[in-house]
């Protein structure tokens, strides 16, 4: 137990994030816990509005401070070098500390490579700026280093002097990745990195991230709604629904032996390519409730097929059940009380 606690890189415990809007409070993240170990890929999967992006953004404290508040929970991050553990949930949102971590120890790539690169500077200049922000280098050295990074993401050399609009979507995502990795972060947060891309380009980026991860030995938090991408990239998976992590485990456990009714429903509702028998899809009924609704207890009970049949009222407070090592499920059906 003790050794396990030693090796984590990032550990989120019971994170709760609320947004205050004109129409009311949006409980974007209600209860999210996950652990990322060095060098591994953690997949965070869920439908729109499940809070996966908010969780990721709160790690870097990128949320708007005016409307958004981390209500409780902790985000423990182990720093490079001295192994010091700090709680990112408590640091100043725009302070010195978080800025020294952003882009340096934790980097991020976004869904829209067009909007995350500035249109008025060349790709090279933007990478050089990112490098110089955290490292003391001469401009010439920085430029050489930037060229090296571009080479690492398999972009042609002359891209360094191109403006982003001249690049295709896939090239821009590569340039973004080069920028994000320029300071050798120990954690890369990839927020839907392939959603805006075509399948063949998506495949390129996935392969790229995999090979860079091996070279640089960094951990990746892969956020996506695409179960296929998760299955191909992640070592561990956390499934989120309405701000809660409902199930987490190794990728094998989640895909081969899903337990939570939501996970089972998700996997049953996607058409499998190349399957011999063509079956009717089995969707999850209903749709994700409005973010303003407050749901006590199990968030999935409004759509859960078991809820009515088994008569679980779903209002009990849920504790995670560890059904096998590292496989956690938040569902009353698996808790001892329900048996």
């Amino acid at each position, binding site marked *: 137990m003790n050794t396990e606690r030693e090796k984590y890189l990032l550990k989120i415990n019971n994170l709760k994030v609320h947004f205050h809007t004109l129409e009311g409070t949006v409980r974007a993240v209600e209860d999210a816990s996950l652990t990322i170990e060095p060098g591994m890929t953690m997949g965070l999967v869920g*439908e729109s509005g499940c809070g996966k992006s908010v969780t990721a953004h709160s790690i870097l404290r990128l949320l708007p401070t005016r409307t958004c508040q981390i209500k409780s929970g902790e985000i423990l991050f182990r720093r490079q070098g001295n192994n010091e553990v700090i709680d990112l949930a408590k640091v100043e949102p725009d302070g010195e500390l978080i800025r020294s971590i952003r882009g340096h120890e934790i980097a991020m790539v976004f869904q829209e490579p067009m909007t995350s690169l500035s249109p008025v500077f060349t790709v090279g200049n933007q990478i050089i700026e990112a490098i110089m922000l955290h490292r003391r280098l001469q401009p010439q050295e920085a430029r050489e280093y930037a060229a090296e990074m571009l080479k690492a993401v398999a972009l042609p050399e002359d891209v360094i002097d191109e403006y982003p609009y001249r690049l295709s979507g896939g090239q821009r995502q590569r340039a973004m990745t080069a920028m994000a990795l320029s300071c050798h972060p120990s954690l890369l947060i990839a927020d839907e990195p392939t959603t805006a891309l075509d*399948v063949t380009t998506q495949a390129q980026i996935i392969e790229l991230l995999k090979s860079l991860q091996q070279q640089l030995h960094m951990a990746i938090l892969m956020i996506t709604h695409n179960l296929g991408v998760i299955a191909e990239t992640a070592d561990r998976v956390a499934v989120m629904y309405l701000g809660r992590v409902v199930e987490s485990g190794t990728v094998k456990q989640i895909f081969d032996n899903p337990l939570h009714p939501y996970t089972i429903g998700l996997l049953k509702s996607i058409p499998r390519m*190349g399957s011999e028998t063509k079956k009717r899809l089995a969707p999850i009924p209903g749709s994700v409730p409005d973010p303003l609704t407050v749901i006590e207890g199990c968030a999935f009970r409004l759509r859960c097929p078991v809820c009515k049949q088994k008569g679980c009222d779903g209002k009990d407070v849920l504790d995670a059940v560890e059904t096998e090592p590292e496989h956690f499920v938040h569902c009353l059906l698996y808790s001892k009380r329900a048996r």
Partner: protein
Amino acid sequence: MTGDGDVILSVKNLTKHFPIHRGFLRRVVGHVQAVNKVSFSVKKGRTLGIVGESGCGKTTLARVILRAYEPTAGEALFKWNGEMVNIFSLGKQGLKGLRRNIQMIFQDPLSSLNPRKTVVEIIGEPLLIHGIAHGRELKVRVSELLELVGLSVQHLDRYPNAFSGGQRQRIAIARALALRPQVVLCDEPVSALDVSVQAQIINLLEDLQNELGLTYLFISHDLSVVEHISERVAVMYLGSIVEIAPSRELYKNPRHPYTESLLSATPIIEPGTQRKRIILPGEIPNPADPPPGCRFHTRCSYARDNCKTTAPAWEETSPQHWVSCHFARTLSLRGMDTQAVFG
């Protein structure tokens, strides 16, 4: 590709070039070849899937068939009252009549519904335009349509923002069906939806097809969705169809290198399976200046010299399986079955 007794829509050599204007006098300096000599036909009550990556011309294709854009060349024959009518030679009145028979469903249910109109007004709009129903009868008709797509009658007077993405797409489907069309062009109808809702809409589309005998042209970039819903699938690359075949056949036995690479690039939900992935080199060429010869040769690992100069002809490698590649019969390409063997 040959005509058949119950073919309802048949497209022949459809071409659409958009002029590129430059300068003060807006001189035409070139053409974007969005759709280039596309031919296919769909049988009544069936679904033809069209897959391709963004910019391959699949959306333009649908819009040209509906005369939202005027075609550059080619013809589109639609079976109307037992006769094959060329859509592209219809006049204003004929076109309005055609709209009752061919309708479209859009990708983004946010943008395809006017946020300032109620559900009655949205679904009833086509009925109003054609003077089919108004007032109380309109409400009755719209209620029937709502029921058909699985929404409740209480929703009649609400605005689109009161609905989730899936419900909005149901409303859009109801609108498309209001005129009782025979053919529905579905342009990425589930791409903007959440995974769990996607399945609901796919099931709904299948049910409606069985109930009303609809014919679908199902356009998507998602190979697994297209495989699930279509009997036949056409693969588009840079404005042209490169391969068209019954869907099982196409996924198992692709004969065009581009199809093979698409299949290998699509992530599958089998964790731990090691696949040898074909990573296409380079980028999609500029459609204003497509490469000569076979359009795919710049990224094709099997390309030889004659690919760079001569455009390949169509070949039927097995019944109903048409490929546009010089080496359609000689290459041994990997389909879905042979890909996952490295387990």
